[in-house]
């Protein structure tokens, strides 16, 4: 019974991992990148210079927004913070929304290039660019599969700690297997947290039955009932001039949030009405929940109004899962920890896929279609995705700035490069395809900072002058990625021949030994044999 259970677990681990492995790799890698969503966006909009919040910022914004006319329904001011440098104004008339970017001490207008920035990775990792075609359901199923693979993966190890402390370096496949076990054990808590919270975020999509059964409006009504809102504004209120000096409110905000009065966003609803209100949102990095704390003031007198009523506990729990997944609370150190855990999980998935294939190729003489498909998808799914991501950054720098539909074109470039990589992997021998795609990715990573400098040397100079660690960090990250990829390519180049010969030899020796033993000892299982089997089996039957 017991070994049987373990065997089922191994089977489950192997095939849940294989079936959605490539999808999971794409989701994990792009999701990991979106931990640095704001930083990536900053690099992708080099027109915006780094700046801190200064006192005049809000007053300048208010003056600019007032000039947009008195029939505007809503203003919104996004202020730069520690991680993002966007000072953005938005105003809304009915359903029509317009926006502009400001910068500098006096607030000159700038037009940054149109791009989705890091946000593309964020939306891609759960919608897969298939929002209206069930992309979020697919992502949810993938999360569930990851949980299953993780859970069954734990059972595949007979001796958990011994496997954890083993890293055999002699053969690539063994190193990979050991690395797979090691990374798996290290990232268990991270993966559990990420997958579980991912499923909770879209709980209304994945488990709508209860709400549909008990409420007429389904999940939408449920959400409206458990979420709290500010009271609705009555239309037709008298005309009142909104405040132009924000310091009245700033003083109150500083009193109410003494430890950290950083404001993330200011929304003004019905700015020219007597019942208009100013909603001040605090930065989200101070709480675990994804709901931002707000204060509400009158738009013409600056007097405090009734704030947001507290939410129901059940809703808060969901918010906290949401917040945990997004990690807005994470300070730089913790953010890097999350990022590295994410990268390790991606490497875990990728190594699993590679192991599946080579474990089987070792044993069979005649390849069948399954091996071919897995091999090609491995190349396109792992190396191809890397290429596509880097291609996305290239598109950001190389596409003309004032072209139409620029943001869409960047995403188009991402998808197109991925497709090309798949085609390339289909028509080249596997080893060469791996080598070519990885070395291209490495070269591209190393070249991008150079291209950036050649294109506009002032950007780098400005970043150095302003101590813009985010900009410099991104370039550095590109170089490090390029070097790592280069190392991988080199390792791939040297090893395959030696390893194959070695493995073939080892295999022959082993077979001989086994044959001899079988001949000598017939069916008796001696202690020695048992020991040998355990030694060989502990890792071998993992996969």
């Amino acid at each position, binding site marked *: 019974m017991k070994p049987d259970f373990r065997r089922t677990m191994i089977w489950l681990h192997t095939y849940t991992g294989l079936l959605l492995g490539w999808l999971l790799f794409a989701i994990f890698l792009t999701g990991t990148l979106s931990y640095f969503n704001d930083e990536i966006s900053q690099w992708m909009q080099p027109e915006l210079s780094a700046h801190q919040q200064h006192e005049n910022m809000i007053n300048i914004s208010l003056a600019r927004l007032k000039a947009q006319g008195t029939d505007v329904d809503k203003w919104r001011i996004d202020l730069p913070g520690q991680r993002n440098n966007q000072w953005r104004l938005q105003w809304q008339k009915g359903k029509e929304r317009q926006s502009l970017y400001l910068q500098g001490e006096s607030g000159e207008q700038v037009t940054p290039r149109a791009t989705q920035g890091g946000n593309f990775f964020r939306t891609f990792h759960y919608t897969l660019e298939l929002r209206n075609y069930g992309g979020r359901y697919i992502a949810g199923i993938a999360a569930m599969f990851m949980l299953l693979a993780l859970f069954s993966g734990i059972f595949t190890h007979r001796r958990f700690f011994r496997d954890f402390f083993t890293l055999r370096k002699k053969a690539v496949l063994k190193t990979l297997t050991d690395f797979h076990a090691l990374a798996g054990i290290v990232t268990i808590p991270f993966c559990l947290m990420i997958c579980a919270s991912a499923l909770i975020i879209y709980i209304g999509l994945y488990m709508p039955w209860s709400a549909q059964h008990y409420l007429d409006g389904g999940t939408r009504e449920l959400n409206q009932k*458990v979420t709290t809102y500010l009271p609705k504004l009555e239309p037709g209120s008298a005309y009142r001039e909104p405040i132009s000096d924000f310091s009245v409110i700033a003083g109150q905000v500083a009193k109410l949030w003494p430890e950290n009065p950083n404001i993330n966003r200011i929304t003004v609803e019905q700015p020219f009405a007597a019942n208009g209100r100013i909603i001040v949102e605090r930065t989200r990095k101070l709480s675990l929940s994804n709901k931002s704390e707000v204060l509400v003031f009158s738009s013409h007198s600056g007097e405090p109004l009734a704030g947001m009523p507290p939410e129901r506990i059940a809703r808060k729990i969901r918010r906290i899962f949401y917040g945990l997944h997004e990690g807005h609370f994470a300070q730089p150190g913790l953010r890097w920890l999350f990022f590295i855990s994410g990268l390790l999980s991606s490497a875990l998935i990728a190594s699993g896929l590679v192991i599946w294939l080579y474990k089987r190729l070792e044993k069979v003489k005649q390849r069948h279609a399954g091996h071919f498909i897995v091999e090609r998808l491995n190349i396109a799914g792992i190396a191809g995705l890397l290429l596509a991501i880097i291609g996305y950054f290239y598109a950001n720098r190389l596409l003309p700035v004032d072209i139409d539909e620029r943001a869409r074109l960047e995403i188009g470039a991402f998808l197109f490069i991925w497709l090309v990589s798949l085609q390339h992997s289909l028509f080249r021998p596997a080893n060469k395809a791996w080598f070519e795609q990885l070395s291209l990715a490495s070269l591209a990573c190393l070249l991008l900072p150079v291209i950036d400098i050649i294109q506009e040397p002032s950007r780098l100079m400005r970043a150095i002058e302003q101590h813009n660690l985010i900009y410099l960090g991104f370039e550095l990250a590109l170089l490090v990625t390029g070097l790592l990829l280069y190392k991988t390519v080199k390792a791939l180049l040297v090893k395959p021949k030696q390893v194959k010969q070695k493995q073939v030899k080892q295999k022959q020796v082993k077979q001989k030994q086994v044959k001899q033993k079988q001949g000598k000892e017939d069916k008796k299982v001696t202690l020695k044999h048992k020991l040998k089997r355990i030694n060989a089996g502990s890792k071998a039957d993992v996969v």
Partner: protein
Amino acid sequence: MNPALSLSARCLAAIVGGYIVAALSSLALVPVQMSLFDNRLEDAILIATMFSYLVYIAVIIDCFCRSSASRAWRNVLVYSGIFLTVCYYGGGLI
């Protein structure tokens, strides 16, 4: 039974059966909560829905712990039956 068939049956029980049991539990736990803890309806629904994920995972584990696929399916049916009964008789509480 053919091992491949048995395994597929087991997986089906775990994934599809588990989801059905979880969905039923999200229905059944609402009247239970309302009568035991005096929760509000919307809270009860949200909690039951979130809790159903735990049920799902528990059922999946359970399916792979049974000695045969038919037992796994039997269990799925038993759980569904229990939750359906609770639903049926608990419906009057709302």
